[in-house]
């Protein structure tokens, strides 16, 4: 004990140190490209670009669509995550895998795939059209669909993990107190998985906000209707790369603001102890 103390002393210091170093490297890795952008950004004509009507429209549309995409992801993703985490049924692994495929799919193909499913002649799309006169492609709704398609997987997997990590004994205790599954879910389970839910929501929101390929293919590129920020940036890059950079910085600034705004409190979980 006394003998091994110094040895342990060293060991005991290692984790935090190594961890901190690795974490620092990771942070730098993330930070550098943005510093680069700021560095190269053409601040001269930035202002005019920022305030350009088209930019603002695109930004507004982006926020609007990504918000809805997140809402839908949560609405449908959380139940799916719950099923995957809490029920045993044949082919569960398959369903889980299925949910992640849209992340693997190259953007263009994702768009095409969506056509086959929800397009005018798509498996379901044709009936949407026939029966309800709904056509998703080339509409704002289409943008939301495309974004949800690529963003939801992140929510599903993250929340499923949270469900698996949660201690079900508290749910049992709640049920013995006469709480319906739904009430248990709201008052006990949800608070327990809040960190995971928050992370999942953030991930899918960010993913939706940055979505490009599936959107432009499935929903087209119509200013004010389906031209989200990434599309506008892609286009700007065609004519004037500087403008593209400035617009990206706007997008970055916005999401940065939002993410910083969402305090640890919303992330919940163990109160972090001081360093």
């Amino acid at each position, binding site marked *: 004990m006394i003998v091994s103390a110094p040895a342990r002393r060293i060991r005991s210091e290692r984790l935090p140190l190594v961890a901190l170093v690795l974490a620092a490297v990771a942070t730098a890795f993330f930070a550098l490209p943005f510093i680069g952008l700021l560095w190269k950004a053409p601040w001269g004509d930035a202002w005019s670009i920022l305030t350009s009507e088209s930019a603002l429209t695109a930004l507004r549309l982006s926020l609007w669509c990504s918000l809805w995409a997140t809402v839908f992801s949560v609405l449908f993703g959380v139940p799916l995550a719950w099923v995957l985490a809490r029920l045993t049924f044949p082919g569960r692994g398959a369903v889980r895998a299925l949910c992640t495929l849209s992340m693997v799919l190259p953007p263009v193909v994702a768009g095409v795939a969506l*056509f086959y499913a929800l397009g005018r002649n798509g498996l379901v799309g044709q009936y949407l059209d026939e029966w309800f006169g709904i056509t998703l*492609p080339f509409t704002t709704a289409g943008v939301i669909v495309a974004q949800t398609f690529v963003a939801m997987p992140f929510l599903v997997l993250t929340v499923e993990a949270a469900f698996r990590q949660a201690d079900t004994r508290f749910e049992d205790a709640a049920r013995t107190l006469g709480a319906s599954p739904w009430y248990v879910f709201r008052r006990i389970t949800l608070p327990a998985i809040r960190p995971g839910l928050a992370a999942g929501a953030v991930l899918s929101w960010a993913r939706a906000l940055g979505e490009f390929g599936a959107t*432009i293919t499935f929903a087209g590129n119509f200013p004010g209707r389906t031209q989200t920020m990434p599309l506008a940036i892609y286009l700007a890059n065609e*004519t*004037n790369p500087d403008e593209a950079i400035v617009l990206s910085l706007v997008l970055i600034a916005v999401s940065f603001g939002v993410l910083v705004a969402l305090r640890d409190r919303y992330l919940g979980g163990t109160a972090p102890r001081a360093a």
Partner: protein
Amino acid sequence: GSSSSNNGGTAVKGAITVFAATSLTAGFNEAGAAFTKANPAAKVTFSFDASSALVTQISQGAPADVFASADTATMDKLVKAGLNGSAPVVFATNSLAVIVPKGNPKAITGVTDLSRAGLKVVLCAEQVPCGSYAKQVLTKANVTVTPASFEQNVKGVVTKVTAGEADAGIVYITDVKAAGDKAEAVTIPADLNVTASYPIATTKSSKNAGVDAAFIAFLTGPDGQAILAKYGFTKP
């Protein structure tokens, strides 16, 4: 105004959507503005994307009235699918140039230099028009180049050169112009060069025959050509 009248057409009214290859973005935006100035009752909205993607979208029922392609091959796909309303007409041509970073640091004088060892050259992938054109040029000049990368589109080439990651690439003249002071063009002599033609046509689903025809007419007319020329396009 007078120009539009001596353009032969009387002012039309109605809104159309033009699907155009991204390389036309700048030129079409200006042309569109001019067109609507001449025809105050008309409205033109553009949707830019890769020509091929636009064809896919049109086949999926995208509300396009006019389709302007960056190459004839893609336009043929539309025609083959019977989705075109009018016969395609070539409204602009373009030719290739070697693009080098500002100041031409590697002192490249022509296509032949591209085979120089230690030179980082990027080309478009053969699957996309600029790539196949570039290939033709290189064959004509019979230089063999091992590029560092086959880009998905011409902008990829421009980006890498302007970013200084690549020393040279082969792109359209129009792209060099668009790159402004970040890049310079090393011209490719006409005998080695190839001509890329930009066909345009109305779509079968076009809902506003008047305006889409008028727009095509405007583009092919002197005013349209003048505007396109500003961006480096040449008369067919």
